[in-house]
């Protein structure tokens, strides 16, 4: 669609009134973009077909800036929820989509986001089946907030359950960490590094599906370490399952540029958000095969085993440091505050 054709420059309160302007916005942008039989039902909701057990996940996306290196908020909103559904051991099928737009958002920006959502959801193989758009007064939002809810069919071979984790299980990370958080931060804070750091936002549903196809219940737990980073995700697993987790610092996949950026800012990459990385806890018997398979997929080129489940230090994550000695990895608590006296 040619953005120029849309007759308003900016989204205004009238677009959220529920009247003619709303209709125009929906017809002119949303339905036109997502054109599919479910949405075309134009009911208050959609009636869909789904087989067996259903995995459902919802997430709201509030990111600033809304356009960043490597993606925009629309791409995050699709990938984030698709990934969450995939982490349940399911194949994502449908998404709901709700916008809260702040009055004054450029129509072109809105259109670009909607189009990104379309492209991304096609890539993920999911359909947008229902949605909502609200407009709030200036200052009551931050350009645009998006909520998506994803529905997926649980993979027949999947048996994802933290109860099944046991000593010796391996912890696999699918790729370079801390990319998304550093991309957002460097853009927001106006920080310039040697080369631009790009968000890693991507959909992980197909690589997960192929892992489940091949290894079934040998895949015991899947998590995407978004907010709070790898440290918080692993800590949650350790605490929730009362297992010990031992990881090795020099195995953590970290891109040189991101490492340097973290170093200069005094940030620990373990706490920086990811949007295209997952952690798998797997039976140790299949470690090599899992990694081999992952490396064949563009989403898992840098997959690596970073550690294992232990009987020691139950409930805690401990990291073997690169220079000797071990340190405790705690979940992120509030903001980062210096501790050295």
């Amino acid at each position: 669609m040619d953005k120029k054709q849309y007759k308003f420059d900016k989204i205004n309160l009238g677009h959220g009134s529920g009247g003619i302007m709303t209709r125009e916005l929906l017809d002119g942008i949303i339905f036109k973009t997502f054109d599919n039989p479910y949405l075309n039902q134009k009911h208050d909701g959609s009636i869909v077909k789904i087989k067996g057990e259903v995995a459902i996940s919802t997430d709201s996306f509030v990111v600033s800036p809304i356009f960043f290196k490597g993606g925009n908020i629309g791409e995050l909103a699709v990938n984030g929820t698709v990934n969450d559904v995939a982490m349940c051991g399911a194949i994502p099928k449908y998404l709901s989509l709700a916008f809260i737009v702040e009055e004054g958002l450029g129509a072109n920006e809105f259109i670009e986001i909607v189009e990104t959502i379309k492209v991304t959801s096609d890539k993920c193989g999911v359909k947008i089946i229902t949605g909502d758009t609200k407009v709030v007064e200036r200052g009551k939002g931050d350009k645009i907030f998006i909520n998506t809810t994803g529905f997926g069919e649980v993979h027949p071979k999947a048996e994802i359950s933290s109860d099944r984790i046991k000593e010796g299980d391996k912890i696999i990370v699918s790729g370079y960490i801390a990319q998304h958080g550093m991309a957002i931060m460097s853009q927001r804070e106006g920080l310039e590094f040697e080369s631009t750091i790009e968000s890693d936002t991507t959909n992980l549903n197909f690589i997960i599906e192929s892992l489940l196809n091949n290894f079934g219940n040998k895949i015991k737990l899947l998590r995407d370490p978004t907010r709070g980073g790898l440290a918080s995700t692993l800590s949650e697993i350790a605490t929730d399952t009362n297992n010990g987790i031992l990881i090795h610092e020099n195995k953590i996949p970290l891109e040189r540029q991101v490492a340097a950026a973290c170093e200069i800012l005094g940030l620990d990459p373990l706490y920086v958000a990811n949007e295209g990385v997952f952690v798998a806890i797997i039976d140790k018997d299949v470690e090599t095969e899992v990694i081999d398979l992952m490396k064949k997929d563009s989403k898992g080129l840098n997959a690596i085993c970073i550690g294992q489940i232990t009987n020691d230090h139950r409930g805690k994550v401990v990291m073997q440091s690169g220079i000797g000695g071990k340190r405790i990895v705690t979940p992120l608590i509030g903001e980062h505050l210096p501790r050295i006296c």
Partner: protein
Amino acid sequence: MQTVKIVISGQVQGVGFRPFVFNLAEMLDVNGTVSNNEEGVIIFAQASKEIVDSFYKALLKEAPILSKIDKHYITEVNHKKFKDFKIIPSENASGLNLQLTPDFGICDKCKNEINDPKNARYNYPFTTCVHCGPRWAITKTFPFERHHTSIDEFKMCQACENEYSDPRNRRFHSQTNSCGECGIQLKLIDNESELVSTNNALIFNTIHRLLIEESIIAIKNTSGFLLCCDARNDNVVRKLRQKKNRPEKPFALLYPSVEKLKTHFSINLDIEKELTAVERPIVIIPTSIKNKTPIASSVAPGLNQLGVMLPNSPLLQLLANEIDFPIVATSGNISGSPVLSDNLEALELLGSIADYFLLHNLKIEHPQDDSVIKVSNNSNERVLFRRSRGFAPNYYAPKIENKKNVMAMGAHLKSTISYMPNDYIYISQYLGHLDNYGVYERFGKESSSFMNIFQQKPAVVLVDKHPSYQSTLFGKELAESIGAEFQEIQHHKAHFASILAEHSLFTSPKEILGVVWDGTGFGNDHQIWGGEFFKYHNGKMQRIAHFDYYDWLAGDKMAKEPRLSLFSLVDEVASIMTKKFNPKETKIYKELKKKNKLKTSSVGRLFDAVASLLDICDINTYEGEAAIKLENHVLGYDLKKCNSYASVFGNDHLSANAIINGVQSDIDSGIEKPQIICNFLFTLAKLIIDVANHNGIKSIACSGGVFQNTVLLDMLKEIAGNEYELFFNRNLSPNDENISLGQIMYYLNGVDS
């Protein structure tokens, strides 16, 4: 005929008290019994009234040198006739209410024995008596009886038994008694576990040779491992630095004797007293006045001071007998990890550092680093830098009403645990940086060990307000698991409370000014405090002033890079900054500073900024490096020649910027570094007096890591003269090691509640 029950409490177990009582009773012809119980030493004495009286008096007056009596009482009781005087076994220890016993350095008599070819203990490296030897290091539980310690694994031979049961022997009831026949075995192996020697008579001579041949030797002392090498040999010291991943941090030295030390450096009597005290700490001595020393420059690069110690155990004494030169004796650990004490663990972790291992088979229950003390040059103020072997776990606190069992978890970087399960306070040895998992484990062990020894769990757990101190998280978990009350106490208030406790000032009728200056602490306003002034009066602690806030940049990195503190305090276009930051860094930090929300009042970081501005240290290679090196440039001062950089309190502002500007203008006018540093320290000292004056307070209590600066202490004392009363931490370090005691004292004295 009268029968009395006498109870004596304090540090009275493991110090030869019962044998002393026995001998006194024999001498005065008193019948009865003596035993250890949960309160201390309990005596039943039967004799004529006059004799009982003089017996009681003599008990208190002539008590063994290592004992510390703090409570005693006598009551008349009815009892059948005693036939003689006996030492009887300990009663059960539930409800323990007495001092524990710290480790004691080797005594002169034992030293003579191991050096005497005619003595049965000639060359025996674990010779002890009631007056010396390990105590806390080997304690599993209490009262202090052999079967409550790890030395119980060694059964005394007949000769040792005879000594043990002979009232006239120095080893009568000596719980750590052992000899070469029955005792602990030494072995020297190489780092491939190949046996070199097990012969006590030859082993130290071999070590001497190996040291000369540039070997690094891990020596298991009775409190933990030491890593040793020839301190004269630059090659081997550098090798140790490289292997230990410790580029610059000074190493402590073991001197074979105080005489040898004096041939290298001039030390005053106060320093000598500290070196030879029963705790045998490392003492930091000035090395600017020196005779010709052979010490390698890599031992303490860029410093005019050196940590030295004398042999604290028979094992180190025997080594000292063989060497006539100082050796590096640094904690046996890998960087940041706790001091090691287990043979297998040491072989695994130190195998790539040490060429040889001197091992023994005594299990160490409470590994401890060496304690560290410094004495200020001018006023001989004694400052504890690290409280560990020799001091832990006792703390002599003023009496305090305590009805609740309290455990305080301390801070994060220099962690300690304080416990008050009864009338006494126990403070663990320095445990270290809780980021390190080994330290964290040991922290947990000491906490459980306290609970086990006293067979009680705390009703109240106290922690720092910092949400992500590992000690805070640990305390939270502990409180939840045992259902204890849980309370957070602000960091700097705890520092202040530690001094109020050390000097019994909680009930002082006077107002006390608390000056708490350190690097970092989480403030009540969620900013990073560190340049604080409090007023304490009538149970209320009020923050009355603080350094003006400036930007805290880049998380923990700012504490590691003094140049960042400078960046925060000066205009980044200043020409000096271009030398310290490349254009890319400048751009990034400028952006950070522009949008930064986290502020600090830290004086520790101000020291960093000054050190960076003076090109003394831009990036720390060890904790506190900038401040240490800054102090080190001052060899002496004359107050009359010092200038203050700002009448900073003139407009109610304490401005770190103003101080930095003052330093800069001195640099610009070509003033020498040492004088600039003196001016800086003088500014701070004078500031303290100004604030006191401004608030009409005459009593000043100073705590926080900044007060490890002994030049600042000297200046402050000089300026205060007789007009102001000054209080410093006395038996605790001013740094975060005192936080756990402060937390307990703040809580128990009901401050601010």
